[in-house]
């Protein structure tokens, strides 16, 4: 594990055209890392994430993405991700190829990637039109023991997975608490694992079965307080639901979106400056 500034971590490990999973299910979404990728103007990325959320709406709208693999693309409890929709419906700012799964399929695909399996396996759900648009991403097979219809999904193995976590200890071990989604699977499936954390502590105060990523699994870590905002970090700050509601209006219009991103992301040096500009941090 190397301890790097977020700027160095992104410039070293996130490459144009690479596949990238920023995971964290509603909780611990690595927004600061997403913004740094936008600042460094990465292009042609294959973005992977179960719920693209605002972070991918921003990356897509700023022209960083060529492809999206996902399982549910809305603003939770609010409505559409307008930048995602504009890219799919009108090709703005550029066309976006979609690879679409259900949550359960995508979880299995991450598990397969994390386990070194050539495919993930699950029962085939009842007939829908999803299978027809999934192409070779989903194949049917009959179970040799029971005769049951099974679905096979190819593994997800991102070039880079980025997670946000609460703490890193002096030896570089990383602790995640609260809702974990498919973070562990996405971490273990990746070729490189980058982590941003709220703080560094001497020793992690964790239960025996806590989710700890050993330091030698982590490629690089950066200390970024507030790095999950406007999502949240359990024990540090809550989700800014008012911001998620306000985003609907900001992202609806191309001009308003671009102006917001320029002012709050491109024209600020880092995440702390964004938090101060929004009045979230003093």
């Amino acid at each position: 594990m190397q301890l790097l500034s977020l700027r160095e971590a992104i410039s070293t490990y996130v490459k144009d055209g690479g596949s990238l999973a920023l995971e964290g299910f509603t909780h611990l979404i690595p927004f600061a890392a997403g913004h740094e990728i936008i600042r460094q103007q990465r292009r042609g990325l294959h973005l992977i994430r179960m719920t693209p959320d605002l972070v991918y709406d921003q990356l897509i709208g700023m022209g960083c993405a060529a492809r999206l693999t996902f399982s549910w693309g809305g603003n939770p409890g609010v409505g559409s991700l307008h930048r995602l929709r504009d890219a799919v419906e009108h090709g703005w700012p550029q066309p976006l190829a979609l690879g679409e799964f259900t949550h359960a399929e995508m979880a299995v695909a991450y598990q397969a990637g994390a386990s070194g399996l050539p495919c993930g396996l699950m029962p085939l759900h009842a007939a829908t039109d999803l299978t027809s648009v999934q192409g070779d991403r989903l194949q049917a097979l009959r179970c040799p023991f029971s005769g049951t219809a099974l679905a096979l999904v190819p593994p997800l193995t991102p070039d880079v997975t980025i997670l946000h976590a609460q703490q890193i200890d002096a030896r570089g071990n990383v602790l995640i608490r609260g809702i974990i989604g498919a973070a562990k699977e996405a971490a273990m499936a990746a070729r490189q694992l980058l982590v941003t954390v709220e703080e560094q502590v001497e020793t992690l105060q964790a239960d025996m079965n806590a989710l700890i990523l050993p330091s030698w699994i982590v490629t690089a870590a950066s200390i970024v307080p507030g790095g999950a905002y406007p999502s949240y970090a359990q024990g540090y700050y809550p989700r800014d639901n008012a911001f998620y509601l306000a985003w609907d209006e900001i992202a609806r219009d191309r001009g308003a979106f671009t102006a917001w991103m320029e002012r709050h992301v491109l024209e600020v040096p880092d995440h702390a400056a964004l938090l101060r500009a929004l009045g979230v941090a003093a």
Partner: protein
Amino acid sequence: MSAPDYSRDEIMTVTAARQLRNGAVCFVGIGLPSAACNLARLTHAPDLVLIYESGTVGTRPVALPLSIGDGELAETATCIVPLPEIFAHYLQRGRIDVGFLGAAQIDRFGNLNSTVIGDYAQPKVRLPGAGGAPEIATYAREVLVVMKQSARSFVARLDFRTSCGYLEGGGARRASHAPGAGPKAVITDFGVLRPNSTTHELELAALYPEVSVEAARAATGWPLRVAEALEIVPPPHPAELEVLRDLHARTQAAHACPVHIKLPS
């Protein structure tokens, strides 16, 4: 007739809540299903087990979450499990009694579209997509659908089938080996539709007091049949309304609460 002292949203939420029996294990979606499940938990079903797909099991939120994974759900849960386990150990293994779904379109056999309006490759409207719906529709012992009724959303033909109801009707669902029974009720802002026991076509089974059969038919994109014994839904009880309105007031206050992050100096 004087105007009712409740809104359509309120009678819809109360009607959905009444479908839930105490002790049932419920896979909850965000929005009206979440309001209905928590209303049931705070009134007639205190031991309802609420599971959100974020992995929070047995959660008892004080205010309604905006997202499926707000901190409130984690803090009040019996346990939090990884997302792959929610789908594998709880849903796929057959441990969910009731799954709640909404969608942009539904057809007469309760099949749902939450993927696209128009053609998949050139969509008129790109919707959020599948999420957990296809597996909930397949594995939950029974499914409740909550949707506002209009000729645009209750359609003769789906633009895209994201989740299965009774497929083509009759025995089609059973023949598909889907373990769950399928949609038991569709709760709308007009009343309740239920599947015919033989054909599985959705029929108008109950109406709200202020709604007519003609209005419900006009808001349906196929010739809506009326069940033999059409019921009138009893209006929300004042106690139900009070609990629901308190819940919404707590939720609004919680969502407006400003976030402060302390940065190290």
